[in-house]
């Protein structure tokens, strides 16, 4: 299957117009020693569309997926309901095959969608300004830390140790060559310990980063954490689950300066971890330090409302090595799905989704904690995810889950030695009472 469009006759005529005898003449600038051998690349021959579909179907059938199995895995990626119109609208060719909207007059659709997306993120997070999206939640946290360090004499970065472990790893990578010190604030009873945070945070602290709900699923005392950081003059960076903001206090309500997170719960399928989108919003004071693209409302020369990429003096294509970030390609299409998802649900539907997560997760919690050998790791409040310690062999548990056609929960032993018996359980609005019963059965039988 090929997608080229010139006929042989066209090609000959084109070569004539160019004024060369053969196509090879056009490649005369490439030294012959560098040419791929005439036998070509060592790759198989191509195939028809029909054969391709057959092959990819066969390969796909080797994957266990959430259409056939009840998914209790979370830890940053959740199996949420996506209204039918999200996929329908977001996969329109006019969105999916457009480029970055540098030519404003030919890209008003994308630019207005970005403006609306920025508004949506600000409304949810309680921030003033949002950019047009980042790669994911982990890189958003890393870029937020860079924002805090840039132009500051403060070189200490305090991370709650209950950030997603992969977020902490990503931050470490981003800071490899940046002079600073990373300190982890330990947890206490399933939440970031307030006393130890106080001890760690001082006049050399550039920022304090927490996640809500945290990696174990528990709701942090966000206002208290923010207060500790702000009192020391450090920037407060809140990494939040956007769906939880239907029920839980927004970063803006609880003293954050920067709100970031992963937008996957908003209309993006799990997709093996990507692509999803990161969101990044700040209080107005930090507007000109934002990484990435921003759409602004303005007018055209006739005074009509118009949208355009703006504040570009922060970006790599203008500022090169002095840019606030190297980000260029972002995750616009995934952000668009988030926007359409929220516009479709509306305030009532969004709240309802949040409530259903609370309802089903607490049902599961009540059921599972009654089982022998099963205990909650903490008594703290949770949204749609919680951690249980289960006195059973994790391998036997994994087998029992598979036998009951369940995906997950997540055994946390891989992340920390003292979490050998801990399991993180996500229960979204899609998990039925019957599936929760099956999860309980599987644990009992293991």
């Amino acid at each position, binding site marked *: 299957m090929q997608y080229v469009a010139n006929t042989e006759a066209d090609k000959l005529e084109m070569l004539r117009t160019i004024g060369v005898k053969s196509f090879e003449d056009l490649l005369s600038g490439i030294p012959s020693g560098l040419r791929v051998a005439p036998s070509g690349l060592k790759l198989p021959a191509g195939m028809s569309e029909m054969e391709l579909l057959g092959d990819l179907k066969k390969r796909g059938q080797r994957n266990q997926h959430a259409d056939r199995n009840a998914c209790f895995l979370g830890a940053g*990626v959740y199996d949420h309901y996506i209204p039918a119109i999200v996929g329908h609208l977001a996969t329109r060719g006019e969105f999916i095959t457009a480029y970055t909207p540098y030519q404003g007059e030919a890209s008003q659709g994308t630019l207005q969608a970005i403006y609306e997306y920025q508004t949506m993120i600000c409304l949810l997070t309680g921030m003033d300004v949002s950019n047009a999206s980042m790669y994911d939640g982990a890189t958003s946290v890393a870029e937020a830390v860079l924002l805090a360090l840039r132009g500051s004499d403060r070189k200490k970065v305090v991370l709650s140790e209950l950030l997603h472990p992969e977020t902490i790893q990503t931050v470490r990578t981003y800071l490899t060559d940046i002079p600073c010190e990373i300190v982890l604030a330990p947890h206490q009873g399933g939440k970031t310990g307030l006393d130890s945070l106080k001890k760690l945070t001082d006049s050399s602290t550039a920022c304090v980063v927490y996640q809500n709900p945290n990696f174990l699923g528990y709701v942090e005392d966000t206002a208290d954490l923010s207060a500790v950081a702000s009192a020391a003059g450090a920037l407060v960076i809140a990494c939040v689950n956007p769906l939880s903001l239907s029920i839980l206090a927004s970063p803006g309500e609880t003293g954050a300066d920067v709100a970031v997170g992963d937008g996957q719960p908003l209309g993006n399928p799990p997709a093996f971890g990507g692509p999803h989108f990161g969101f990044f919003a700040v209080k107005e004071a930090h507007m000109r330090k934002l990484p990435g693209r921003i759409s602004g409302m303005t007018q055209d020369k006739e005074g009509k409302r118009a949208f355009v990429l703006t504040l570009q003096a922060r970006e790599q294509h203008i500022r090169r090595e002095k840019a606030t970030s190297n980000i260029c390609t972002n995750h616009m299409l995934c952000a668009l799905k988030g926007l359409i998802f929220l516009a479709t649900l509306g305030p009532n539907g969004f709240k309802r989704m949040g409530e259903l997560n609370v309802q089903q997760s607490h049902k599961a919690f009540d059921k599972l904690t009654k089982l022998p050998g099963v205990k909650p790791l903490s008594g703290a409040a949770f949204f749609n995810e919680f951690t249980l310690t289960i006195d059973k062999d994790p391998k036997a548990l994994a087998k029992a889950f598979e036998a009951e056609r369940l995906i997950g929960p997540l055994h946390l032993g891989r992340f920390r030695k003292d979490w050998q018996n801990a399991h993180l359980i996500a229960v979204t609005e899609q998990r039925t009472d019957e599936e929760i019963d099956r999860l309980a059965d599987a644990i009992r039988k293991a």
Partner: protein
Amino acid sequence: MSKLIFEKRSLNQGDHLPAPEKGFDASKFFPASARRKSGTHLPESAELDVVRHFTRLSQQNFCVDTNFYPLGSCTMKYNPKVNDQITSWPFYGRIHPYQAESQVQGMLQIIRELESQLGEILGMDAFSLQPAAGAHGEFAGLLMVSAYHKANGQKRTQVLVPDSAHGTNPASAALCGYEVVTVKTDAKGRVDIDDLKAKVGPLTACFMLTNPSTLGIFETNIQQVTQIVHAAGGQVYYDGANMNALLGIARPGDMGFDVVHVNLHKTFAVPHGAGGPGSGPVGVKKHLEKFLPYPRLKEVSGGELAWDYDRPDSIGRLRSFYGNAGAFLRSYCYIKALGAQGLKEVSVNAVLNANYLKARLAKHYDLPHDEHCMHEFVCSAKRQKAKGGVRALDIGKRLLDHGLHAPTVYFPMIVEEAMMIEPTETESKEVLDKFADVMIGIAHEAETNPQVVLDAPTKTPIKRIDEVLAARKPNLRWTPAAGSAPKLADANLTTSNTCCA
């Protein structure tokens, strides 16, 4: 223009999901301090109104599916629909990154095979698919270069980039704490060897280069360039943005590059998505392999694949999970459908199309480097600017009136009034002829009636945008307190899709 979704109002029942059980009160599970106090102020629209809103927005975009889109260095080729279809299947869309590896062998095999296909196409020893975009791949590549020098006990503080480089190159170098040193381009549009020799030295960590260059010219002396940098102890980085010129023709690995990234959303047909997501796999030669981001795939018993996190020399993790799997799938399908011969045909037609357009425009626009180009070329509106005051920007806007997207303008920065044109292989001669005819017509207008070009566009939903106002008085969101967005002159609410004809 369309109203904002926030300015519309109709009945939204909020009933895509069932109601919670009778008497259920979510708030009782949370202390008051943890609960949201403010409303979300999300828009309220009936489903049909949401569908119309976003359908109308989409119609205000140019896109590959509707318009010729010759943006230089962006490779706006056709994105096969079959790849979108496959990606949406539940056994690819509804799999979780933390499922046991035994449950996702189909996906893992695809990742492994794509890694090795890219290795063969680019001539590299190992690939990681983790980077989310080209700039992310650059970041990964430079971190590996730093790790390599550190491991050799060397402190090198400079990254060289040509003056024609993409903006992400210096920005990525800065992110890794490097000082950026610019290398000049010679009169023929290639790396100035003397300037390179003068600037390379014991402080050089890396030279970042794209080949063909952003001028669309193959670096004929590329082996000499890589030898010079290697002799000084530096590494050479290949920015794969222009790889669409070289599939099955030449390989960066054979030219002496140590580390590369490739944009799956350019060369390998992942749609650009109005700005993303893309994917920027990073490839290395053997001596850098141990520094690749973790986790890596490894073979375990019975030919099964598993993630290996035990990579002590790795630069670390660049993002969550394993990368943009949706992009991997599309590119995997693309490579599989085309095969070795089909991939070569891509570059053959991309180079032919670019040279044909260049030949057709040669008399009408200045060509800073008049030799055969690869997949793209740069021409200049210098002549038009001097005669009638028509600039590259204006020509781009005038193209929009003809339903043709503008080329990349004012890049590379070393060419005055630059217009960088990349037609790609998926366009036919018929489309190229239409574009050439329009461009020649605009050159004529620029001489005889420049005002019509300066006034363009006139057929798009809006006219020229006031960018200065946008930057001076940033209006970056709608605010519920004000009730509506700041009132500008009356918006024309009829929708036009003339631009997508």
